[in-house]
């Protein structure tokens, strides 16, 4: 199963960012909460689903498994698609930046 491209879900985007440093499920959710300034409290089902799917799409890998918990890390392929998504989102924000300028006027 290979990642087919296209816009990422919010959950996927944040998990990939948070996995720049190897991490496991619970800590990862706490990390995302911190990263998003408390805006995102990701549910465990969503987290587990994203991790399983992205592992199949080879965007992340398991670097440690002690039988009770797995530690995940982003792959090079994961980094590439994350960067692509970042640029896509940046373009979207830039294209809509006039909204902010109008708001100041």
């Amino acid at each position, binding site marked *: 199963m290979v990642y087919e491209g296209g816009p990422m879900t919010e959950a996927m985007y944040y998990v990939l960012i948070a996995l720049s440093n190897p991490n496991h499920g619970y800590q990862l959710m706490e990390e995302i909460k911190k990263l998003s300034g408390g805006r995102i409290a990701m549910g465990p*089902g*969503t987290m587990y689903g994203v991790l399983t799917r992205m592992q199949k799409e080879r965007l992340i890998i398991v670097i440690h498994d002690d039988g009770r918990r797995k530690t995940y890390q982003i792959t090079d392929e994961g980094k590439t698609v994350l960067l692509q998504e970042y640029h896509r989102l940046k373009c979207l924000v830039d294209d809509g930046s006039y909204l902010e300028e109008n708001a100041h006027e």
Partner: protein
Amino acid sequence: MSKIVKRLRNINLYNIGMFESWLSDMAQEGLLLKRVGYSNCSFQKTEAYKMEYRIEIDSQSMTKERIELYQQYGWAYVCSYRELHIFRAPASEELIEIHTDLKEQSYTLKNVIRKLRICNIALLACLVFIIVDNVVLISIGNTPYLNLLEYGLQSVISTFIMIMVVILTIHQSCDSILLKKMLTKGKPIDHHANWKKGTKLVKAINGIAIIFCVFIFIQLGYQVNHIVGYFNGKGSYNLTMDTKLPIARLADIEESKNPILKEEDIPKKHNFYNEVQKESGLLVNKYEVRETYYVADEVWEDHDEAYTPSLTTNYYELTIPAFMDGVMKDLVYQEENYYFTEEYKAIKVNYEGLDEVYYINGGTGCFTVVVRKGNKILSLNYWGKQEYTKVLSALAIGLK
């Protein structure tokens, strides 16, 4: 040890919102889910709780890591049934939902929908095979009613049960597809949906399936009884001069003096020439009676051998009056076409004391009469010197 209570599950498995809502309502009644079964759920009787239930759909089994992860957010794992994994947590405003991204949640259904689709195709193929098999079985010999009495009931009931299973599985499949579409569109699951609305179809299907199962068990009971009867001698036994049956006996037809019941050359437990076979079922009580005389001091008219008249009676006592005409027609057809080389034409005759009579002349010294009286239908094959009116006269008395 606390009491375990079972409740029928009248909600479709994949109607997640209603199922979760039902489980929450049960907890408020003091019933905490313990196990999910095919048709019911087991609950532990406790005090009433305000509990939230969430059902995860995943074709993979729950891992320890996953259970612990959910636990850290307050969701305790309860049990799994097929692809459904059930969690619960005490209701609280601080409770974090298991799924916070609907699009991601919709992805979890992909494998299950594919699995259900394969299951539907396989079940439909089985259903088609069963229907074709039954149609062929019932059409054999162009006597559908007789075949239905003979082998059909069980097959027809099992076909209907199979149809019910297919409907239920398709219903589950539709629910899971609808759920996926709903989540993809960004509409969340209503965890407190009115589950009473969703119970009607499942209740109706379960009710019909239970009725059919009861019929199958009754029919199986008859079949077991038939097998037991074969061994204990009640289902199949040798005929004697004194055996009382509601049919015509050779003694009432023949005028021979000192007849004896013919024995087989090598005596066996069952005498083929003089035997009664009894078979009961939901649709029919049936006897097959074979009777053959041996008259030492009397010979056949066309050859010198000892006179051995015989009478084979097939007796059907029908439960369903609607089958009467069909069985009568089939028996007449069967007798008309008994020999592949020749076709004998049945003649309808009137005889006092009998409701409907057909006479089929099968050549010298041989004929068949098919007779109906009330809910009893009989076909009698006679070999001997007597006229058919004599057989009918003996039968009219026998049936009284």
